[in-house]
């Protein structure tokens, strides 16, 4: 099992909350595609298992790629790796890019899953975020895609927006449910330093949502979606049974993946590798047949921490037996005191050798993680 992530570092405009790597100048897009192809070719030996089960185009905004560019990249993957016949092939897309024509083309290219950046169905919030679309564009694009037979659609939503009320969140959830996509990702808004929101926060022009309220909102989300038949298979991800994101699941289960493109990350079980977060530097290096990246070798302690912090997010929880066997970390013994407190507070439960967050525990996931890592 292996996955490939391809980062498309372009956006029409910058969303005020986003600190991912992207550029709003599309000038070098063609050169970028060439560089991405070159990196794919250059790194064929990175993955120990060459069979690719998931291919994921993320960004930035991958839907900004012209169909022939996307075709080129998929073709390169097919040429240099073994793309499994039933591979999950996801494209992140912004609603305003998803015209009927575009949808038809990408479907023809083999894209079988769409992750649509809706963020909210509230036009005021969309404006506040500096999104390039309104809610009706989002609704239209989802219905169009469904009409064309693309079933596997995920929508991204953001909660915890300053001044967002419970009623506003409820409306977002209702709208999302009415669209009946099999997958919904919901992220709490985090104010990142190097963003417009970060700056506003520093200047006291933006007050992040109070944690108590954000906690209540997250609870509402979990209850509403669960009632609608979605399972929370990861803290921020909800799906109808059988519709999980295979690619993203690989991040939480230690599957190796290859990250292509500027700022993309790769993982081979022993180290994490980060490509340079700079489009020109990235392109230049690949022109010379080199890769501009940094490698971080994981210590035993790092591996344990990552195991705990990723697995605890999943509905299956931390496989204690696997953790013990694979990384020689007997969590129940090493963290006995912490664990008994967490159990007493009903933040976690242990069943079948798995340690899982309770509903209450999910709200405090990071704090719980901190108690359990070495």
């Amino acid at each position, binding site marked *: 099992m292996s996955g490939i*992530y391809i980062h498309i570092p372009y956006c029409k405009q910058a969303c005020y909350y986003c600190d991912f790597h992207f550029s709003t100048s599309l000038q070098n897009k063609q050169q970028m595609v060439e560089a991405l192809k070159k990196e794919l070719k250059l790194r064929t030996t990175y993955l120990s298992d060459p069979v690719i089960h998931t291919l994921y185009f993320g960004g930035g905004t991958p839907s900004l790629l012209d169909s022939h560019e996307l075709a080129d990249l998929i073709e390169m993957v097919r040429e240099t790796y073994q793309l499994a016949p039933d591979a999950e092939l996801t494209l992140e897309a912004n609603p305003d890019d998803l015209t009927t024509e575009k949808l038809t083309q990408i479907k023809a290219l083999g894209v079988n899953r769409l992750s649509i950046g809706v963020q909210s169905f509230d036009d005021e919030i969309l404006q506040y975020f500096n999104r390039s679309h309104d809610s009706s564009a989002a609704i239209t694009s989802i219905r169009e895609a469904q009409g064309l037979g693309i079933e596997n659609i995920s929508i991204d939503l953001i909660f915890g927006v300053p001044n967002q009320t419970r009623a506003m969140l409820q409306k977002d959830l209702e709208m999302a449910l009415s669209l009946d996509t099999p997958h919904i990702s919901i*992220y*709490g808004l985090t104010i990142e330093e190097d963003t417009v929101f970060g700056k506003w926060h520093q200047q006291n022009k933006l007050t992040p949502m109070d*944690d*108590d309220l954000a906690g209540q909102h997250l609870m509402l989300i979990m209850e509403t979606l669960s009632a609608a038949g979605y399972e929370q298979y990861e*803290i921020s991800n909800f799906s109808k049974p059988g519709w999980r994101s295979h690619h993203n699941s690989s991040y939480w289960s230690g599957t190796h*993946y290859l990250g292509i493109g500027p700022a993309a990350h790769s993982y081979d079980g022993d180290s994490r590798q980060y490509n340079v977060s700079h489009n020109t530097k990235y392109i230049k290096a690949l022109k010379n047949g080199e890769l501009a990246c940094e490698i971080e070798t994981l210590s035993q302690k790092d591996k344990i921490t990552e195991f705990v912090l990723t697995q605890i997010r999943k509905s299956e929880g931390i496989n204690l037996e696997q953790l013990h066997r694979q990384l020689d970390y007997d969590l129940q013994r090493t963290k006995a005191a912490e664990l008994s407190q967490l159990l007493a*507070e009903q933040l976690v439960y242990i069943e079948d050798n798995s340690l899982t967050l309770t509903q209450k525990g999910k709200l405090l996931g990071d704090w719980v993680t901190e108690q359990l890592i070495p």
Partner: protein
Amino acid sequence: MDHLRNFCIIAHIDHGKSTLADRLLQNTGTVTGRDMQAQLLDDMDLERERGITIKSHAIQMAYKHEGKDYTLNLIDTPGHVDFSYEVSRSIAACEGALLIVDASQGIEAQTISNLYLALEHDLEIIPVLNKIDLPGARPEEVSEEIIDLIGCDMEDIIHASGKTGFGVDNILDAIIKRVPAPKGKPDEPLQAMIFDSQFNSFRGIEVIFRVFNGSIKKGDKIKFVATGKTYEADEIGTLGLQQHPQKEIKTGDVGYLISGIKVAKEVKVGDTITAIDRPTTEMIKGFEEVKPMVFAGIYPVDTQDYEELRASMEKLQLNDASLVWEPETSAALGFGFRCGFLGMLHMEIIQERLEREFDMTVITTVPSVQFKAFMTDGSVQDINAPSEMPDPSRIKHVEEPFIKAQIISKADYVGPIISLCMDKRGTIQNQVYLTADRVELTFDIPLSEIVFDFFDKLKTISRGYASLDYELTGLKQSNMVKLDIMLNGEAVDALSAIVHRDKAYEWGKRLCEKLKELIPRQMFEIPIQASIGNKIISRETVKAMRKNVLAKCYGGDISRKRKLLDKQKKGKKRMRQVGNVEIPQDAFMAVLKLD
């Protein structure tokens, strides 16, 4: 003796004392340009960065004037109010003083008080208008101030620039012509005054002294009168840029003494050195035991570093005898030390030196002054820390130290300065216009009120113009109470403070609010309460943690999140536990930053 001149420099911080001193060393050939390092006399890094001389030194220069050879001893003085006793001893070792005034800034409070000290000791004052080359220089106005102050003539004032070297020869000539040669009797018994000391890790304490009568010879058996300790003068000499060993230091001259002294406490500034075989009957006047004025607890950030902190403090004490400390235990902070400092600057310096020279980061508790509790049973207790405050039912009354604070400022800021001092329980005693534009204000004010943030506030409201000098005037009865802070019902000793009853409510409220900001949410609600005795006067609550989860965690987020968790974990290890509440270290410093 006719060819000897002993002088010091009186100047405010930043008025260019050190630069001008360097010029004197250069023009007399004591240092060559090559050796020259800006502000030579300040040899601690810290001093150079702060631009102030913390420890005084002495340096000897040779100078030829009208065909005759002269020896000049420049005795450097510390420039801050915390070290006024050391300044007074340096002054007592001189016959003359250069009064250096910045030509654009005019006279400041510290300068005036040191000038008065110099006049008390009958020093010949040579006024120097420095930084005359700067565009903002106002030589006429500032000269008027000087003339008003010391009653000299306009032509007595030397114009100079430490930067360009202008006027430096005039200064040297004036020192020779105007400063009297030392008087004293070479055939009398030895009488020398210690005015400084420094620590040498190989040779022990080096004592810097001035001979008033008699002379000291290498190998002499000597005695320090105040401590009663006896030593042998293993090495004596004069101080140039390096030490120059000599066989004898004669009447009127300045020198150093090495006699294997290991403990700085044995060397008291102001003490008299005499010879054992022919001792003097009289101590040199003016000796005082230096007493700490400000007290605070110093604790290692990491409790495991206690022994290392102790070793560092011991080393610091070797060259700073004015630092006193004893072990102290706090329920919240563990093992640490109760320290006495000469003042707030001194405290800051110690803290910084611990950090720089010993790589020790420390937590400092609320600074306190020494109160006296008069007990119902007639006894009197010194209170250096809130924990030492007896039960109120056993106290008849409490007295606290008051100071006379002299503030010199531009006239524009008189209003805000007066209200600041009134807010600090001060009363105005005097208001004198030095010139149309500059005012000297005198306040009677409790010392405890100026140990926190007074100086910073004064600087802020006067846009940096006001300068402060103070001296202790005595004790007065005050209604002081001990204010305690409780977290989740448990008193945190390190956050207690002794405050005036009228201010306790405000203090408690602000401290609770600040702590609410600083204490991270935990699994349970944490009440923060301020109390006097059993009476709660303020309350805040840190709500229980409700949500603490980062939203997304994909490829690149994983290592980012791991690093974040590791960092949080590390920060948590440095937290202190009181009851079941975890307190970050900056909460203990919160009191110091209440505004």
